[in-house]
């Protein structure tokens, strides 16, 4: 057995805190009288953001991955956590979005004064924190079984969020989501069992050194990737996502769409580039890309036909996730010295980040529109612009990113993917990106057109929306736009700490 | 030593016989309650003889003690389960006499 050679680095303890801090908060809320749920959450949220920024700073400062070996037990026997440039980026993204969502949800999930405890606040805040810990573990974990536990943590946090309001459709959506997630987990675990049987390790670095092409490895990786695809809602395994994401409360939908489905994609990325024997399987990469293309085209068309705003946004999530899966053939065919120096890789990561920001903003905006109007039927949105003007503006700005229009993060991401696709002569991918952009423009403008229209006679807003909530939504949309000013080239930061074969 | 082994063989053999009887009864008897009767016999006598046979082979006192506890627990479980299943059958009959 070749020791992978992890060593705890200077700021390593930060990684432990990033994983454990939300858990501490969750337990505190559960135990310490739930009237304090929100207050405890508002201590943990900035704390977690600070930790995530500190980890990113440490990665940038040292130019190497930050590592922590738990209990001093060297992998593969023990477990190590490691933050490289990519995972640090995603951790900061997660912290930012969760803080924004926390601010947005402030007040909506607080305990009514006449009750000692209420269901919704307690459940919402504990699950949010559980989710955070799960995401951080997914981004930091280096051991495939540890990552399995992290994925389960994610599932158990996300599923109850879907049926928070207890309506029948949401319970149904949650059950379906749970069953899909469980199938995904079992497939993942099957693959892990085969890998352990073949190599006696589940440590990624150890596998990278040993893995070679044989039936066990191929079947194992195939099973794991299919399982993760079900969790990431890639076509045709996407059926659970729209009802689940549309049924959850807006704050929860934002997190589910922006972050939760990205975690399994991140793991596919890691399996593909960090575990699988290199060079990867060309056919499998093409298949993933084709499923991505189907997701983009098929689900964009369905989104266009939705009656309700939240369902439209949810279908748009499936479509936008499709773009992520275009990365595999683009990176493999690229002539860059390593995967993370290719433009396709950077484009993919940027798509992930900008979609997260834009989609969070969109779901929150939809939530505010629904609160103000009392419904979210697209055909009946007239007057939304007078009721919640800032939210409608934020929706439009976030829409830029989905369409891939400048200036926006989505524009740069899609341009990079497009460049990579033309360079490598993947013409179908080029076509899919262009068609996807047009379809996204159609569904975004359909909503905007309605929302900007003059209100009907007798129109009145149902609820007054505090300004800060609208500003949070706008803030997220603006950050998605600001990403559009990054230079059109591979970022060095995303390559920090990434080792691997050339 | 040989004597002990012979005792074990005899007792375990007897236990097997009662398990055989129980299984045959479970499979062959015509109605639920008589099948239940056969099953209880297997649990009581079959398990009892096997434990009796294994007792002299146990390496230490704790293991022997555990064997006895296992036997007692099986007795208790068999008695209760028998009663409960019989009650269950009775209820079922009352509700649906045709069955």
């Amino acid at each position, binding site marked *: *057995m070749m020791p992978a050679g992890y060593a705890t680095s200077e700021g390593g303890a930060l990684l432990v805190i990033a994983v454990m801090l939300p858990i501490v908060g969750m337990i505190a809320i559960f135990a310490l009288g739930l009237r304090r749920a929100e207050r405890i959450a508002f201590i943990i949220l900035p704390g977690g953001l600070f930790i995530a920024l500190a980890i990113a700073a440490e990665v940038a400062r040292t130019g190497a991955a930050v590592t922590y070996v738990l209990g001093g037990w060297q992998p593969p026997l023990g477990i190590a956590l490691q933050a490289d440039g990519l995972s640090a980026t995603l951790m900061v993204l997660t912290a930012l979005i969760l803080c924004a969502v926390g601010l947005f949800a402030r007040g909506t999930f607080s305990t009514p004064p006449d009750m*000692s405890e209420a269901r919704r606040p307690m*459940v919402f805040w504990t699950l949010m924190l559980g989710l955070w810990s799960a995401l951080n573990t997914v981004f930091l974990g280096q051991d495939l079984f540890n990552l399995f536990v992290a994925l389960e943590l994610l599932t158990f946090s996300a*599923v109850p969020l879907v049926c928070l309001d*207890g309506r029948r459709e949401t319970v149904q959506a949650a059950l379906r989501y749970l069953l899909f997630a469980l199938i995904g987990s079992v497939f993942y675990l099957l693959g892990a069992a085969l890998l352990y049987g073949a190599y006696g390790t589940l440590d990624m670095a150890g596998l990278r050194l040993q893995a070679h092409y044989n039936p066990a490895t191929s079947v194992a990786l195939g099973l794991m990737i299919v399982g993760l695809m079900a969790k990431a809602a890639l076509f045709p395994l996407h059926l659970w996502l729209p009802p689940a994401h549309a049924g959850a409360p807006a704050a929860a939908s934002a997190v589910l769409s922006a972050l939760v489905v990205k975690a399994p994609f991140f793991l596919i990325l890691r399996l593909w580039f960090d575990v699988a024997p290199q060079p990867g399987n060309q056919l499998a990469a093409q298949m993933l890309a084709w499923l991505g293309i189907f997701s983009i085209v098929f689900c964009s068309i369905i989104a266009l036909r939705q009656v309700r705003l939240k369902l439209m946004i949810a279908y748009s999530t499936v479509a936008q996730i499709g773009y992520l899966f275009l990365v595999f053939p683009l990176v493999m065919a690229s002539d860059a010295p390593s995967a993370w120096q290719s433009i396709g890789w950077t484009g993919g990561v940027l798509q992930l980040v900008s979609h997260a920001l834009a989609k969070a903003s969109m779901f929150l905006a939809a939530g505010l529109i629904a609160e103000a109007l009392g419904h979210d039927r697209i055909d009946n949105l007239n007057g939304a612009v007078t009721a919640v003007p800032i939210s409608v503006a934020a929706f439009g700005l976030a829409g830029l990113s989905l369409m891939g229009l400048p200036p926006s993060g989505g524009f740069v991401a899609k341009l990079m993917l497009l460049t990579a696709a033309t360079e490598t002569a993947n013409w179908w991918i080029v076509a899919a990106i262009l068609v996807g952009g047009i379809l996204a423009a159609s569904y975004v403008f359909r909503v905007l057109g309605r929302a900007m229209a003059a209100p009907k006679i007798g129109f009145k807003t149902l609820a007054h929306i505090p300004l800060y909530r609208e500003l949070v939504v706008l803030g997220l949309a603006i950050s998605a736009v600001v990403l559009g000013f990054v230079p059109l080239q591979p970022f060095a930061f995303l390559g920090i700490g990434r080792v691997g074969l050339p | 030593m040989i004597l002990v082994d012979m005792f074990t063989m005899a007792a375990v053999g007897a236990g097997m016989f009662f398990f055989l009887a129980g299984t045959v009864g479970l499979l062959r008897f015509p109605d639920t309650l008589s099948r239940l009767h056969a099953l209880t016999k297997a649990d009581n006598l079959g398990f009892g003889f096997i434990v009796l046979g294994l007792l002299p082979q146990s390496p230490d006192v704790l293991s022997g003690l555990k064997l006895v506890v296992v036997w007692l627990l099986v007795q208790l479980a068999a008695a209760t389960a028998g*009663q*409960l299943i019989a009650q269950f059958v009775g209820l079922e009959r009352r509700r649906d006499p045709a069955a």
Partner: protein
Amino acid sequence: MTLLPDLALVLLILTAAVWTVAVRDRRDAVIGFIVVGLLLSLAWVRLNAVDVALTEAAIGGGATGLLLLRACARLVPRPAESVLPHPAMWILTGLLCSVIAAGLAAIVVMPVEPPATLAPEAAANMGELGLGNPVTVVLLAYRALDTLLEKVVLVLALIGVWTLTPEQFWGGAPASLRAQQSSGALRLLAQVLPPVGVVIGVYLVWNGADHPGGTFQGGTVLAAMWLLVMMADLREPPEIRLHTLRLLVILGPVVFLVAGFAGFWIANGFLSYPPAFAKPIIVIVEAALALSIAVILGMLVAGPAARAPR
């Protein structure tokens, strides 16, 4: 030794599994599943995994069976609607499943040489900790993070189940687990068995440090005893707002976290133990975890609150 008994056991397991999937009545399917669980615990004995066999016996024979049978009891009987799946559908699914099974089988019949294992590494580091059961060492030392996160999963599952409480019942007690008809035999069992069961549960936890057994097995046995008492109507499930209940639920994770963070001061970092105190620390953590597991499993079976708080 001949392989025939093993083949027979495998045949029995697969037969019971096929029947479980094929049978029409859902309660029959649950009984089939319980039988599969019982047989699997024997399979684990043959795989030399006594710790897992204990877990399977406690969960398969006890907790999961009870959970599913209770669900059957509470689901309304529905008239048989013959939604026979389209033949093409089941043939296709059958083919797909056969292909997957054949693939897995092809891989497992070709063992790698030398066998892939971490046993030597696990053995080499055991001396430091002074524990005799390698599985406990893996669970609470080498891979303590997994175990800690898994306990958080359990807490989250409980919160998830509680989420399904209708608004007006929040804080109240779960539906009673009372049996259909009160029965003297059941009451007697519920009075005699729990003292023995508690001793066995504690024994499994304590013994787990050096011999097969451990927190989860012991905790499940304790939970089973509690559930038995509730089924015999000697106790009602507690209200979910009770402070003591909440504290018992988090006791295990909190003690584990405290032990983990204490590692920063008394040892080399998170979740590491000073060699001299490793065993007592691990035993204390195990005891706390077992108690929490017992309470969580019991409440998971009991389900969401179904009565308004008093």
